[in-house]
Each structure stands twice: as structure tokens, then as C-alpha cells.
């Protein structure tokens, strides 16, 4: 049974149909990439799945066979469907440890949130000496790692990563790819939105491309990047350019 099934999910803002009848499913343990030009509906699709800040207008989203309709964002997170945002969402005035502790306490499962917080922070590479630092003092990459640790502290069954490589330097992107590989190696299922195609090609087992809110192509990454529809969506149609 797929871990995540999206059936004809749609969302409109006035006359704009941001996500238009998108259907796909993600198998347990899969690393599933989502690409698309700006405004293609990638992040809106994540919003619909995670319920933060809104769910779909129509269609169904099933997580481990359970319909998410009517559930609030924090309830979906507690089910183990955990998301990170493209923008940095660390709590600036809280320490590194307390940031992860919030996830372990409110969204995680198990008796000792402190242990899970420390494990998650160690997993993404924080040394114990960093635990007391304020999140506001961290570099962009360290804040991205902290967001990942906060998400991992919930012991997610499905991790939705929204453009984690944005704003990072090339060496940082390479380190991030290695980190996401390590997360996937634990058996976690990952849904990854990314603008940096090298990241998607390096990580994804299947790649879905959205365009103008609709599903354009869904296949192996090497097949998808050669698809003329994808090339047209990214680079435009010569006839129109001329």
C-alpha cells in the first residue's frame, strides 16, 4: 500500500487554479522528487498535503490509508507526516536544543523527548557544544540543519522537504545531499521539492514535474529531464519566443 496517495487534489485562489487535479502516490521508503518552474504549484501542493496553512478545495489525500480531510496541520504532523518550509522556520530566541525539543515534545512519539532531540541534532551533525547556542546565531546552512533536526525529532514516517537547498553554497548543497541520503538510508520516505535540478537528479528515485498547477510528467529522473514537454515548460516554446 502506498504511504501517501494524492487523488485529484485541487486548490484555487480566486480565478487562479494553483493546483489542478494532481494525482500521484509515494511508496514507503521512496525518495520522490517534485520539480517545476516558478508558480507551478509545488509548494501549494505541499500545503495541501501537510494542511499548513490550508488543505485542498477538492480531491483526497490519504496517508497510510487514512484520509487527512478535516485534520488540522498539527494533527497531521503528529501522525508522522512532517514538513519543512522553504523559508527558515527556526525559533530564533530558543536554543538549538529547545528548537528540536519542541518537535520531540509536541509531535514526537516516545517517553524521553530530550533523548530524541539530542539524537536528531547529532544525526544532522550538531555537536553537544552547539546545543545551547541561540538559533538566531546560526548560519543559513546550520539553520537548515536545525529545521531538519526539528523535523526528525518527530520521528516522521513521511518527510516533506520544500527547497532545502535554497540559499546554500555549492559545498553546502553537496553536504545537504549527503545528509538527505543518510536520512533516506534510515528507511524514511521523503518527498522533495527542489529548484536545484542537480539535487533532484542526485537523490530522486522518481521525479514529478508540475506546470501551471497540473502534473506534466512523472517518471525516472533521467527520462523526465529528456522529455520535450519538460524542456518546453522550463525553457519555453521556440515558436512563442520567436
Amino acid at each position, binding site marked *: 500500500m502506498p504511504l501517501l496517495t494524492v487523488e485529484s487534489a485541487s486548490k484555487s485562489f480566486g480565478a487562479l487554479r494553483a493546483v489542478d487535479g494532481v494525482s500521484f502516490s509515494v511508496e514507503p521508503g521512496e525518495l520522490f522528487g517534485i520539480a517545476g518552474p516558478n508558480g507551478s504549484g509545488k509548494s501549494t501542493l505541499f500545503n495541501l498535503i501537510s494542511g499548513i496553512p490550508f488543505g485542498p478545495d477538492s480531491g483526497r489525500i490519504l496517508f497510510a490509508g487514512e484520509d487527512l480531510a478535516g485534520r*488540522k496541520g498539527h494533527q497531521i504532523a503528529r501522525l508522522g507526516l512532517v514538513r519543512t518550509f522553504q523559508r527558515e522556520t527556526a525559533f530564533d530566541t530558543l536554543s538549538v536544543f529547545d528548537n528540536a525539543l519542541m518537535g520531540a515534545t509536541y509531535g514526537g512519539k516516545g517517553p524521553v523527548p530530550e533523548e530524541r532531540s539530542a539524537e536528531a541534532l547529532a544525526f544532522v551533525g550538531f555537536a553537544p557544544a552547539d546545543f545551547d547556542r541561540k538559533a538566531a546565531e546560526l548560519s543559513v546552512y546550520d539553520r537548515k540543519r536545525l529545521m531538519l533536526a526539528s523535523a526528525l525529532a518527530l520521528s516522521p514516517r513521511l518527510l516533506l522537504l520544500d527547497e532545502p537547498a535554497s540559499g546554500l553554497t555549492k559545498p553546502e548543497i553537496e553536504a545537504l545531499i549527503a545528509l538527505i541520503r543518510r536520512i533516506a538510508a534510515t528507511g524514511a520516505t521523503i518527498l522533495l521539492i527542489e529548484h536545484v535540478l542537480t539535487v533532484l537528479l542526485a537523490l530522486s528515485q522518481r521525479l514529478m514535474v508540475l506546470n501551471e498547477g497540473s502534473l506534466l510528467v512523472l517518471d525516472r529522473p533521467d527520462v523526465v529531464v529528456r522529455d520535450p514537454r519538460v524542456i518546453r515548460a522550463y525553457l519555453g516554446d521556440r515558436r512563442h519566443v520567436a
Partner: protein
Amino acid sequence: MTVLGQILLSALFQGSLYAMMAVGLALVWTTIGVFNFCHGVLMTLGAYLAWQFVDPEALGLPMFVALPLALLVVAAIGFALQALLIRPFIGRGDVVLVAVITTLAASSILKNGTLLVWGPRPKSIPPLAPDTIALGASNVSAHQLAIIAITPVVLGLVWLFLNRTRVGLALRAVAQNEDACQLVGMNVTALYALAFGLAAALAALAGIFFGGFKFMSPDMGTEPLTKALVVVIFGGIANITGPILAAYIIGLFEAVSIYYVGFYWTPALLFAVLIVVLMVRPEGLFARSSRGLA
């Protein structure tokens, strides 16, 4: 007692009352992001409910039962007000303006409700400590000294709650990023209700302080609310430590000004200083540029 001693005592007393009111107001702003214009009437309700529970003409309960009971009831009223006046509008772009209107309307309704239930006759509740204490050549009200001593303890407990407990950390987190809180499984609605309830209890405690040394009236919360607004704007609305420091600074400023300039000129001077502070530091004297509850 020397003039300096009297000024310091007055500053500490007024500063304590202002701090107690301002912290609740700042707590609601930093977590929910709205101004609660009911805060003054919640103070009034705290005083009247304490009278209802403790006065021999009413229920006549012992002080140690009546006062915590009044705090709990007002905290519950705060919970309910949040659910009715704020929660339905969370997420709307104009929530700040809508909350001004809804909390002002509720303030008016509750003020008149207080008049209907308890009548216009002035009331008072017993002081926290009934006697006077000799300080040098002067006698000082033990109630005022109790307020000066209790306020830092209560505010210290609030600080410990916000900084040393999981729920307190969650309140600080929700003050910074509501979406991120949902991402990690926090029930933001419940945290908002908690913040409003805690702020209401702090307002009620200020009401109990006031009711022990002044006659109570349904309008008694109006001036303290105005002063609390001045304090949080002066200190910086984005956290709670700024308003605490500002409360004591304004208490000292008022005490000095009343002694040397006069009672009637003091409010004008205070607002002049506030305007100058806002011209130099628009975010307030001790504030950061973002909300943060620390």
C-alpha cells in the same frame, strides 16, 4: 522617611502595578499579535470577583481561597473571550483591526455588566496585609509593601514558566512562528487560549492589588489599561522583559515628577517623554525588531 525614600517607595509601588498590567498585555501581543482592550476590564472583574468571594456581605470565603478563586475565574473568562473575540478571526489579514473592535466592544459590555451585577456603590476588598509598618519616621501601608514584594516574585514565576517549562517554551515559539509550531505538532489554538488566560489572571491580580487600597468602580480598569499601553509601547511591545523594566522606570519618573513638578503636569510630561522615546527608538526602549517573549 527621607524624600528620596518616599519617591523610591512610590516608584516601586506604581511600577509594580504597571508591570503586572503591562506583562499580560505584552503576553497577548507577543503570542497572538493583537492588542487586548479588554485587559482593563479583566482587572476590574478580578477586583469585583475577589470582593464577591471574600466580602462578608457576599460569600465571605477566607482570603486564601477567595483570591486564587478570583484569579481562576478571570483566567477562564480570558479563555472564553479569546475563543469568542479573537479565534474566529485568526488568519485574516485584518485580525489586528478586528481584534481592536471586538475587544473594545467586549470591554464596554463587561464594564456595563459589572455595573448591572454589582451596582454603582464603591466597594473595596481587604488589603493583602492590613497594618502599617514604620519606616523611619513614616508609617507605610503593609498592603503597598506586600505588592512591592509580591510583584517581582509573580513576574519571576512568569519568566521561569516562559523560559524553563515546555509549555512556556512553546508559548515563546508560537510568538515567533505560528506555521513552524504547527509543523512540529503544536496546537496553536490551545496555546493562544493559554496566553490569553494567563494574561487575564495577571490582570485580575492587578485588580486585587488595586481593590485593596482604592475604592473599586466599574471604570477602575480604564486608567491602568492606558498606563499599561504606555508602558508596553515605551518598553517595547515585542517581549515581556522590556515592559517590566519600563514599568519601574515610568513609576520612578511619575514619582519624581509628581514631587517636583506636580500631579497635574505629570501625565503631559510622561507623554512628552514617550513621544521623544518613540522618535529615537520607534520599536521601544528595550525591544528587538521582532516578537519574541523573552
